[in-house]
């Protein structure tokens, strides 16, 4: 599996585009890097509540670092999951809780995805990950 991009890669890449089409084409392309969960892994208890599309999240912990596998049936959400995991993947609970996701999305100029509570449900995903971190 190719290594997912880091937050700095993403910030640099997105700053490069100036129209919506290029930006979302980039997010759609990112979605292709996110491993797909199998049907067996896509269980109902892993569904994140509050998303219009289905989003599954599996959390593992290894030597104090949290590892997430996430997937969605919607492509743009999958792309956005890559943006989110860039910040959270294989980080400690403290690092996860300290990360300012709102500021990051603001920097990416994708604020609406994180401020709108309904719709694509990114906020619920971030909330769920932070909850897992605070219980780890």
């Amino acid at each position, binding site marked *: 599996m190719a290594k997912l991009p880091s937050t700095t890669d993403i910030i640099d890449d997105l700053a490069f585009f100036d129209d*919506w089409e290029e930006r*979302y*084409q980039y997010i*759609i392309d990112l979605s292709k890097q996110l491993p797909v969960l199998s049907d067996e892994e896509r269980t109902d208890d892993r569904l994140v509540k509050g998303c*219009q*599309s*289905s989003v599954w999240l599996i959390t593992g912990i290894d030597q104090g670092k949290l590892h997430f596998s996430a997937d969605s*049936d*919607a*492509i743009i959400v999958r792309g956005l999951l890559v943006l989110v995991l860039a910040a959270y993947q294989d980080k400690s609970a403290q690092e996860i809780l300290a990360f300012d996701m709102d500021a990051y999305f603001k920097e990416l100029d994708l604020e609406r995805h994180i401020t709108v509570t309904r719709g694509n449900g990114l906020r619920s995903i971030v909330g769920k990950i932070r909850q897992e971190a605070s219980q780890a």
Partner: protein
Amino acid sequence: MSFDVQTLRAQFPILGTQVNGKPLIYLDNAATTQKPQVMIDALVAFYTQCNANVHRGAHALSDEATRRFENARNSVLTLINATRREEVIWTKGTTEALNLVANGLSKKLKKNDEIVVTEMEHHANLVTWQQACEASGALLKVARINDSGELDIDDFQSMLTERTRFVAFPHASNALGTLNPVTAMTAMVKSHCDALVLVDGAQGIAHCDVDVQAIGCDFYAFSGHKLFGPTGIGVLWGRYDVLDTWPVWQTGGEMISTVEYQQSTWGELPYRLEAGTPNIAGAIGLGAAVDWFMQQDRIALRQHEDELLKYAMELGSEFSGMTLVGTAREKVGVMSFLVDGTHPGDLGFILDQQGVAIRTGDHCAQPLMKRLGVGGTARVSLSIYNTVDEVDALFVALKKAQQMLT
């Protein structure tokens, strides 16, 4: 009267605005319609000229507020051809109207009584009756639809028995656009059983000529905001002799005749079912919207809407990879669809970036989605002010979305 869509559009300020830097193409009219300036003016006029509580008299402002508020009731009466103003009850919207009926119904129903609904219900016209059944031990029966989203009228008839006490169905389906033959269905109920009939008119009121006497139903419910009016106001129309015996549901001011510490007597209709200070501005705004609507050439509006829908459905059936969901012969205002290899949420998102507003998801009709074997759809819903150019632009935007997503 001639009909010119540009003249009509000019009366809706929001239609001239931009979203995401693109001219707004608003195709989410089944969720809520946009508002004409005259409606907005009526709201402003109420607050700037005669804001006061109603029916409390004693001063000029209150008299004027009451006059405008009650005139609005008369406008609704005319729109739906009701016979008595006491039959027009203000509610928050369709949902509250249905809850008002369900609340009374659950007190009247007995164990083993039956309620009949259809497979195409909005949750509001399903869950309410589920609750009434749960409270009373009555049984909820669901009449089938066919794969194109039309009611199976034989199945509907077979549901009607001597135990049927209440039948509810939508004038039109919000998810598919299917228009139901409500007059024939009501007649069928009335000839087979001693049951009350409720028509969920949320999607009927802006697209059909509603004549409650001709339909023959006992209740007709709709929301003001889907009829060019404000949010937070709607109507329950009920036949006088039914409403007159209907149990009160909320209690408080306005609906009372006499109160002592241990008991009270209820006031007259319509106030008996309108507890508390009503949504005065909302009712006045809705009245203005209804007056405006009635002044339009509604035959021309209807024809325009029908042509638009037909055109959209034609383009949809030719669009490679598109599956139309809901292809009933009689439809109003809605094209629901899927595009191969894409999630409706993604489609909606890429359309939004291009200024095109549609709705995606289950449309508050999860059992219907399940029945049709889909998780949800993308839904385009049209209104009188949409244009052929907008439908063309929708399909250009869809093509782009399809290219990006597949």
